[in-house]
Structure formats: structure tokens, C-alpha cells
């Protein structure tokens, strides 16, 4: 179970729009409590005061950037979605396939406060003239599934879903779809294929899902956290949202940040967008067991490794982007000095190689080769040229060279690990067989 580590007393509606209702005991916020604490007010407001266009404009104005990791403006995405009287109503799909290594934020929101997501989806559905919503949920999140199913029933029973939503004459419903366990389903077009019952291969773009998505209809795919931000924006306005991050970042709102790895207190915190890595690191209590920070991933396995010196950077999309890494999901993974970068990278690349859909060559055949090279380096059987080959592959797995962003994401930790910790990789070649990492870092220590 993922937990928010800020006590309830510190979380307030105005400053912690995502988590202020959450209970310290992590029990879910049920329908009655949610409704009695201002829940679904945004839907009422939208139905009464907004057209789908004005709602889109409001969200666009808030500069809500996609919390799934790519950081694309949600309002922009909505405004690019085909809608109008002559366009058939399509779908709003919640990307809840949270499989990014080191990421567990959507899970918290869905397990403990599913109504916020449902409210966000209703609003997104209204803004995009969708006829139906789908929550594409990671299959292993069975607790979240139970929580969502109950919430959908309760919301439907109270008229927030189904035909004629709260007497507005507008029809909209949401269905839960649990995935079968593929990381690539987090890629929005692969998700749509999977939702349609097809192989989870990404689709060629254009057409973008907003033009031709699920079953050929206009489809908006948004991350859980992104959608959970929408009720607050509708309730309090774009300016309020923008102000949440203050001077810290040009990106608005709060962010559900997290830390995992060898920190004292791994967990989640809702903080203003643009909080620095150091603040987060310190909230997590710093390193445990007297370890020293060696490196960190800013937002999941598909982001590039950073060094301790990067901790003072603001954790927002643009700032982290300038380092050559990415903000990603904003949940940092902390690496201690007793961990082998080779083993860690190998472990990540094994994941990415396994999760390749098999559509395009670099990803399908390049990643497994990189894994084998990393295993060789790990075992001390690396050969001269292996590192250069890995670097070349990391380049050739980069953006524009592959069909989707999966391989470029996989290339990020690889290229950054070699860039910052080349000596660890070189030990896999220079040392005699089997002794590569005997000193100082034990092999397999990840």
C-alpha cells in the first residue's frame, strides 16, 4: 500500500488539492465523505456554468502538464481533440497502467480517493464531449480495482454517471478495464490497441488519438494524477492552480512527489510543482544506514541518472529536461554508493527489453543485446569495445530512430549511467573473469 507521508493536519484543500481528504490510516475516502467535503461540486459547476469549450479553455489556461511523465499540456491535448456537433462522441481514457519502475503515485490516488479521479474524468469527458470513459488500470492493482468499482457504483447510484448526469441531459459513464500486465500499455496508443483487444503495439501518429483513437473515435488519454487535478482547477480556477507552485516553477499546481531506494523514509508527498530534489530527499530522511548518495533517477526507470550535485534543481519538466534527463513521474529513485551502476542498469534494461512490444527493430533486438552486454560486464566477461557498443546502441535507440518513446526511455538510464559512471563499466572489462565488481561494489547489488 502506498502512503502519503504528510499527516492530515498538514494537508489543506487550498494547498493540497490531490491529497487533503486522505486519511492517515490510508483507508479509502468513500462516496458520502467525498461528496460531503465538496466532492463533485466541480461537476455541478461545470454542468451549470461551462460549455465544453470554456471548460477546455480553463484547463488549458491552468497549464496543467501531463503527470504521466511526458509533461504535455492537458488543456492543449483537449483543445486538439476533434469535437463538435458533426463529430461522433468518443472516449476519455484514464491511463492508470502505472508500471514505471519506481513509481507508485497513481496507486495512492486510486486506492484511497477514487472519486477524485472519477470526478476528473467526468469533467474531462464533458470538456471533450466523450460518450464513455475507460479507466485502463494496471492488472496488479487489485486493491485500486476494488476501490474504483465501488466508487463507480456509488457515483452512478447518485446520478453522477449514466444517462442524464444529474439531470443535465448529458450522458456519460465510466468502465474499468484491467490490463494484462504490459508496460507498453502506458503508451497511449498501445493502451488504445490493448483496450480494443488488439496487440499492445503503439500506433502510427498521425492520426493522433484525439482525431482517431479507440474504435476510430476521438479519444483523450490522460494520466490519473492529471485527471485528479481537474476538479481543483474547475473549482478554484486556472490562476489558483498556477499560483500553487508559486515562484518555484512555471508549471502550475502541485505534484505528487515520491522517493524510493535507500532513503530512510520512502513514500509520497504532495508538494508544489518545482520543489527541489534536495527538499524531497530531506523529507525522505536522507540516506539510511549511513550510506552516501551516489546517484538518483528523477522520475522512474526511463529517466536518466543524475548526480548529488543535481539535487538543488527544481523538479519540474523544463529544469530537469535541461540536464539531459527527464522529470518523468517525479518519483525519485535514490542510489547509494554501495550499489553497482552496472547491475542497476542491467536490471532496468532487462525490464525494458522484456517490455518491448516487439514492433520496431532497435527496441526489439537492440535492448536484449544491451542486456547481454551488461550481463557480461557485470560478470567480468566484457570485451574491449563493449562500452562503445553500448553507447552506440544508446544513441541508436534514441528519439526519432524508434517507433515510440519506449526505447528512447530505456536508453536514458543506459547512456547516463555510462556517462557518469564509466569507470564502473570499465571494470567489467579490465578485471579478470568473475571478479569485476568484487571491490568495492558487490556484483548484483542493486
Amino acid at each position: 500500500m502506498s502512503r502519503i507521508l504528510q499527516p492530515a493536519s498538514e494537508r489543506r484543500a487550498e494547498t493540497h488539492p490531490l491529497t487533503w481528504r486522505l486519511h492517515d490510516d490510508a483507508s479509502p475516502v468513500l462516496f458520502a465523505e467525498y461528496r460531503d467535503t465538496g466532492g463533485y461540486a466541480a461537476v455541478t459547476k461545470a454542468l451549470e456554468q461551462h460549455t465544453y469549450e470554456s471548460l477546455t479553455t480553463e484547463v488549458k489556461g491552468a497549464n496543467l502538464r501531463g503527470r504521466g511523465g511526458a509533461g504535455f499540456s492537458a488543456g492543449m491535448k483537449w483543445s486538439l481533440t476533434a469535437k463538435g456537433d458533426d463529430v461522433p462522441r468518443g472516449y476519455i481514457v484514464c491511463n492508470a497502467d502505472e508500471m514505471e519502475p519506481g513509481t507508485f503515485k497513481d496507486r495512492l490516488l486510486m486506492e484511497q480517493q477514487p472519486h477524485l479521479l472519477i470526478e476528473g474524468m467526468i469533467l474531462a469527458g464533458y470538456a471533450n464531449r466523450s460518450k464513455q470513459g475507460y479507466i485502463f488500470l494496471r492488472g496488479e492493482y487489485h486493491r485500486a480495482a476494488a476501490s474504483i468499482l465501488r466508487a463507480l457504483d456509488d457515483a452512478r447510484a447518485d446520478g453522477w454517471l449514466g444517462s442524464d448526469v444529474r439531470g443535465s441531459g448529458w450522458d456519460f459513464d465510466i468502465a474499468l478495464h484491467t490490463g494484462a500486465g504490459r508496460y507498453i500499455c502506458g503508451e497511449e496508443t498501445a493502451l488504445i490497441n490493448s483496450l480494443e483487444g488488439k496487440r499492445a503495439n503503439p500506433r502510427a501518429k498521425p492520426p493522433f488519438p484525439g482525431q482517431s483513437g479507440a474504435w476510430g473515435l476521438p479519444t483523450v488519454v490522460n494520466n490519473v494524477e492529471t485527471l485528479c487535478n481537474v476538479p481543483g482547477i474547475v473549482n478554484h480556477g486556472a490562476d489558483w492552480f498556477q499560483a500553487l507552485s508559486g515562484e518555484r516553477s512555471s508549471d502550475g499546481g502541485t505534484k505528487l512527489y515520491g522517493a524510493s531506494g535507500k532513503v530512510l523514509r520512502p513514500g509520497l508527498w504532495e508538494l508544489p510543482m518545482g520543489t527541489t530534489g534536495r527538499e524531497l530527499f530531506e523529507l525522505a530522511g536522507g540516506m539510511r544506514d549511513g550510506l552516501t548518495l551516489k546517484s538518483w533517477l528523477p522520475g522512474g526507470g526511463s529517466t536518466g541518472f543524475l548526480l548529488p550535485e543535481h539535487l538543488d534543481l527544481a523538479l519540474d519538466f523544463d529544469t530537469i529536461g535541461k540536464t539531459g534527463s527527464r522529470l518523468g513521474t517525479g518519483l525519485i529513485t535514490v542510489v547509494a554508493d554501495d550499489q553497482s551502476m552496472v547491475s542497476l542498469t542491467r536490471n532496468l534494461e532487462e525490464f525494458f527489453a522484456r517490455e518491448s512490444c516487439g514492433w520496431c527493430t532497435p527496441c526489439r533486438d537492440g535492448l536484449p543485446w544491451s542486456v547481454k552486454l551488461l550481463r557480461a560486464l557485470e560478470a567480468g566477461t566484457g570485451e574491449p569495445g563493449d562500452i562503445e557498443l553500448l553507447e552506440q546502441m544508446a544513441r541508436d535507440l534514441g528519439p526519432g530512430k524508434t517507433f515510440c518513446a519506449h526505447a528512447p526511455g530505456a536508453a536514458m538510464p543506459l547512456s547516463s549511467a555510462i556517462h557518469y559512471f564509466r569507470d564502473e563499466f570499465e571494470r567489467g572489462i579490465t578485471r579478470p573473469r568473475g571478479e569485476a565488481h568484487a571491490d568495492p561494489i558487490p556484483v548484483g547489488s542493486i
Partner: protein
Amino acid sequence: MATIHVDGNDYEVEDSDNLLHACLSLGLDIPYFCWHPAMGSVGACRQCAVKQYKDADDTRGMLVMSCMAPVKDDAYISIDDEEAKAFRETVVEWLMVNHPHDCPVCEEGGHCHLQDMTVMTGHDRRRYRFKKRTHRNQYLGPFVAHEMNRCITCYRCVRFYQDYAGGEDLGAFGAHDNVYFGRYEEGTLESEFSGNLTEVCPTGVFTDQTHSDHYTRKWDLQFAPSICHQCASGCNISPGERYGDIRRIENRYNGDVNRYFLCDRGRFGYGYVNRKDRPTRPELFQRSQRGVAAQGVTLMEIDEALDRAADALRGAKRLIGIGSPRASLESNHRLRELVGAECFSTGIEAGEFERLQRMQALNRDSGVATPSLREIEACDAVLVLGEDLLQSAARLALSVRQAVRGKGVELGAERGIPEWNAEAVKTIAQDAAHPLFLATPEATKLDAIATRTRRAAPDDIARLGFAVAHALDPTAPAVEGLDDATQTLVGEIADALLAAERPLVIAGEALASLAVIEAAGNVARALARRQKAGAGLTLVRREANSVGLGLLGGESLDWALAQLEQGEADGVVILENDLYARLPAAKIDAALDRASALVVIDHQRTATWEQADIGLPAGTFAESDGTLVSLEGRAQRFYQVFDPSYLRPDTRIRESWRWLHALQATLERQPMTTILFDDLTEAVAGAAAVFAPLHHAMPEAQFRIHGLKLAREPHRYSGRTAMRANLDVNEPRAPVDLDTPFAFSMEGYAGYREPRREVPFAWAPGWNSPQAWNKFQDEVGGHLRAGDPGIRLFQDAGAGEASYCDAIPAAFAARDGEWQMIALPQLFGGDETSRRAEPIQARMAPPAVTLNDADAEALGIAADDPVTVSFGDTRITLPARLGRDLPRGLVALPQGTLEPLVGALPATLGWGRVALDTAAADGEAQA
């Protein structure tokens, strides 16, 4: 048009293309795998990367996949850029990571796109030093062999099999570097087009199993441009021969007809050429009287055979000839010359011949032209009356499928997605389809893509057609007594045809129903009167040269039999025709028994051959030159692939027309003259106005390029000096081909730069696979630069002013205790020659009798029960097949596969009786 700048040169290209397509069309080489000219781009393999620059000043540029990059005017790209080259080399290195590098034992070797592309990219050092991933292979039936370890995961196979051809039993399984292309379990591939996998697969995963059984490398095969003889579609093929046997049939590109794809009957049905029991010497049969088995057979030399045949025929008081719709125009014409036009029978049963002539007339005066197979792909509404196209003209069905899919292309275009962006078009298309209406007695596999299907008896199918014509044009005769559901369907069909720009009506010979053909004719005429200039009428004929015979004219087979039976004629020459496959044996026997001289010219040992006094061994398509006319009226030449007597000196196989020429000279006691094929074609061209275009349709024997004949063999052809060493250590001169511009040799022109229409095999430097066709086309996937082979003999269908047919049949009514019998075409086993090929026999469905399950229940018949069907003089017991779709009152029998059991079915099966064979059923129960 757009101007693009490629490595410093400027080119004019189509702006609707992608860069890969445009560059390949310019003759520039970019390696590729997942892209296919008929299937478009999907951006999976990443092999075709090139550098694209923002403008003339941009020096950095960025890599793009040329297959996914639309042509833009004033675009600057580089193929030779070092980064692009390095990336392409890396991609092929990745593709080869798990490849077994088994070229020496791989049957794709020598015509392998992967080999070609690997060489093209310059990848020649393997850096991958780890263990390779391996797969298990599957048994996929008698046609296609499977070796998954060679797979480079380009997804072409499933894209062809599922998206292009509509198959469902081959798919992609697994993920990451463990993607598996196969069936969910071992078993025969169900698609009628599975053989194309061997050509769309860029490597040796899917190879030709029939080729494997007598394997020869492509470079060691001798080829000729040929035409498939297994149905009337007129697909162009490249048969390859070695040591006197046809080893495989490869697709031959014709931009108007089959383009890249063949059906499995055409590709794998060649085995009859290689049959060991084929007559190879003239045979003289000794028998006491006709109708009994010959007591002895004497093999003869040619001169003796001609003398004896002439003597026998001279003894006859009147001589007639029976031609054949599976023989060439030239052979049939030569027979007609021998016996005289008034004594020439086309060898086609009277009813079929009448329908054939009716179809001919509609092609002339319906006002609606016959589209080519390629034009069909662009049709936007299709009505099929009576034909299960997958059985009667399978390649045509594949074109119809593309027509239906065309709706997705249209929807894509509306949103700026070009046709070549295949997956994007698929995303937009979803289930969108151009309307397809199928009216057949039985369920068909095309039903899956049909807008509406109607199951009906032949007369009701005709009535539906007549009613559609009336709905289109009220001056067409109306159909009385249609029920509401039918009336609604009629309205829907008429609306769809009217809404379309290029509506297509298809009917044909499948149900042996003149009414169905007339109904299609009325629909065509109505469309013509509604000014549908883009409308098409496709009339499916049964055999490879049915149309040619219809144009040549003559009497029916029934007439010929009557002539003999009535003693009007007693000498007969039968050309490449097994009469016993056309009419019931009793009828044939009654006629042949009265013949005093019976000469049969054929390449198969048929039941008719067994009745001959003298049998003359003819060449098949592989050993002859000739011309066929396809169902779209396209006269196409097939060329002799090899000289059978070079390697088998004992053989006396000759082209049928050569036998007939010699026989005529002998008969008339004229000195034997040399006959050249061109002279013969001239004679045919002069025989009727419709044949006049044959004058300049094909290159004449004197055609040369750079003074050279055209090579039938690739320049790497090996072993020629040794291949006859078992007979004689002295190598004789290679056979000389006086009839065509082709040489039985690797010497001669084999290039692609000089335009030529008739290409024995596609090869260009660096391009050994079928993708070498790129080099012969005006643009890739377009037409051959020199023009597509063949010439249309009829295209103008008049103004459609001929009057409507008003012979509307009464509605079908089921009878008590009697069933209307219909014989339905079969792809495998349905034609006289390919059913003699073993791989086809392996795919033939065991004959069964199909009846409606309610009828069956009423008769106490369960599935697989032995059922005795009797009609006319025919009585046969077959296992029952229950068809939920077949209308009550009908019984369906398979056409073609039944004949070997009972002989030919009567032309019109009429009404018959059906009963459970209780004796057999009891016996089975006891067993």
C-alpha cells in the same frame, strides 16, 4: 508533383508518395523490409532511414524513416549520409542478431531480400557474441514450409495474411525479441492465398513446400513468362524448370492484373506438368472395339504416328475437331483449320457455351466495361450474384477485398492520411468498408466483409439481380412477388450502387444459370442508363481460355457428340480435352463408340485419351507457346519454359498446334513445312476482327535487345555443360527457339534497363528476390515500364442500348421429396489439370453432399451420415454436410472433386432425390 533533392541531385516525384517509394521509383537504392509496395508503410523495421534536412543550409539534418516520411516539395535528403548509413548498418545487424546465418541450407538463398539488403547496407561483420534465441517450427500444410528461426520480425506475413487477404489463422504471438509468427496450433493454413507468404516474407521463414520437395536455387532455374492455366483470371506467372521438371511457380508482376499475388491453386497446382504417367510418346491403341480397354499400346515415332493418324482420319467419311477451353487460341485455331470451321466444336458443353456467348454479348453491348483486376481494387460498391469468388476465381476475390478496404483509404484521405500509411489507415478505417453484397446459395468466406449476404437458390439470386436492375432503372422489367425483406435488400443494393462512383457487378458460370447472368446484365445496363460511367461488369468464366474459345466460336460439345452419334461424322480429333469431365460417360461413350477414327492430343492421360486410336503427346503450358484470353478479355502470351527433349531425348512431346500442323500436312499429303509461332498468331489475328490486336500484342520471335535474344536463365545458371552428361559426354547445342525471342540459355539479355514487357524472371544487380520487380516498373507498384503484358481484345461495351432481358424466372419453390441439385465450384480440385497435382489433392475437401439442416433433420440425416443422391442417371453415396445457410429444397455437390468418382455431372443437374443410405449407415454402425 514535387521536387526533391537527393544527395545533390534534383528529381521530380509524386507528392503523394513517401520518400522510400519515391526514391525506389527513381531507381535509387534504399534498403527496406517492412514496407511492401502493395501493403504500404508501417515504420516497424527502421531499415530505410535517410537524412532529411530542413533546407539547403541545414548541415546537421535528422534521421527519418523514408517509408514514413511524406514527400515534400523542395525537400533535401541524403541516402549516402554517413550517419544514415551507419544507422542502417546497425539496424540490419540487429535484425541478424538471432538469424541463423544458414544461407547455404536455406531455400530462400539466392532470391532472398534479407541477403540483398544485408549486402546493400554493407553489414559483413557480426559483433553479437551471445546465444541466439530459437523457435520451434510448425507444420503449415502441403504448401508452405515454416522456419521461424530465420525471422527478422518485419510483420509483413501477418499484414498480408490478415489485413490484405483476410486470413485469420496466422498471427503474431509473444512480444519483445520473442515474437512468433504462426498458427495458434500446427495445421494447414486456411487462406486461399497462403503461398504469397513465400514471396512477402523477406527471408526464409515461409518457403514453398512443393519447391522444397525438388529444390533448386533460383539462379539454377530456367524461366519463361507464363500465364496461369488454372482459372480464367489470367494471372501472370514465372514457372521455373530444372532437369525437365517445373520446380516452382513464382508470381510474375503485371500491373494491370495480379500485381504481386497469386492464389494457391495457381501457385501450387503445377504438378500435372511433372507427372510421371504423362504420355511422352505417340501411342497406338489396339482394341477390338471402342469402349473396351485397349489390349495393347504401341509407342510410335512421330512420322509413324502422323501417318497412322492421317490414314485413320482419311478413312473417316467426315472429320470433326473438338477443341478445348484449356488449350491456347493457336492450338484451337489450328484444329479449326484442320477440320474446317463448320466442323469445329469448342469442346464446351452446350449450356455453358450458351452462357459463355451470352456473357460475351454482355461484354460487347451492356454499356458497362470489364475492369481489370487492378481496377476492381478501386471499385467502391460491389454486387456479386451467384459466385463464391474464392472458389471460382480466387485472385479476383482478393481484388474485391481490396475494393472493400478502399473505404478506409478514402476515410484516411479525408483526414490527410495517405494510402501508404497502412497502420494509420487501418486505425481510421476500423470496420469501415465499401458496400459488398453477396448473393450465393452457400456461405462463403467473403461473407465476413460483406455488407449484406443473401442465401438463395439460383433462380432467386437471379430475381434479386433483376429486381436491383428495376430499382436502378424503372424501365427495366420488374420482378413480381418479392417479399418485403428482399424488397428492402434490393433497395439497399440499388442505393449503394447508385451512390458509388465505380460500382461493380460480378456474376458468372458458378451456378450454371443463364438467368443469373442475364440479371447481372440487366443491372449493368441499368447502371449504364443511369450514366454510371465508372461502372464495371465482371463475368467469371470457368477455364483459362473460355473467353478465347467464345471469341473463336464453334459448335458446342453436345453438337460434336450428336454428329458422331448420328453418324454425321466418324472421324474426330480431340484437343486437350477430357470429354468425360464435361458430360456423363454414357453420353460420351455413345458418341465415341461410333467414331471410326479417334485422335487425341493431350498432355494428360485422361479417360478420353484411353478411348483414342492414336494419342499424340502434347506440351503443357510449360512446353508450349500460346495465347489465352482471360475473363477481362486480355489476350496474354505464355512462353515455353523448357524443351522437354533436350534432357529426355526419348520424349516426343510437341506443342498441340505443331502436331495439328503436321497432321494437316500429312493428311493433305503436302510436304512438311516448318511452322513458326508468329505465323500462327498472324493466322489467328486474321481469323476474326476481334483478334486483330494480336498482330502487335507481343514481341515477335525476331525481337532483340542490343541484338540479343532474351535469356530464360539467370546469368549464374550453373551446370549446363554437365546436366546431360549422363546421356552423352558431348554437350549438344542448346535447343534453339525459333518461335519466340527467348533463348534456352543464360546467354542473352536479362537486364532491366531496356524496357520489355515479357520478363521470364525478375532480377537486377543486387536485387535477387521478387522485390527486383521494382526495377522493371515505371514506379514501384505501378506498371511495367514497357507496358503490362497482354492486350485487351474487348473493352468497349457499347452504349448499353441493347434491350433488357425480361426472362425473369419464377421464384424457387422447394418441392416435397425432391431437391434441386446444384454443383458448386471448388478452388482445390475444381479444375481438370491442377487436381492432378499432389499438393492440390492434399488440400481437396473430401466430397460431401450439403443440405439444409432442417431438410436433413426431416430426412433423419445427421452430419457425416452416408446419403444417397440420385438425379438423372447418376446415383452416388456421400457423407452428409449440414449447411445452415443453404436454402431448404437445395442440395449442393462439389464441382470437380466429384468427377473422379462418378464422372462428369450432367450439365443441368435438375431435380433429384436424397435419402439416408440405411444399408451403409447400418454397416457403419456395426463396424
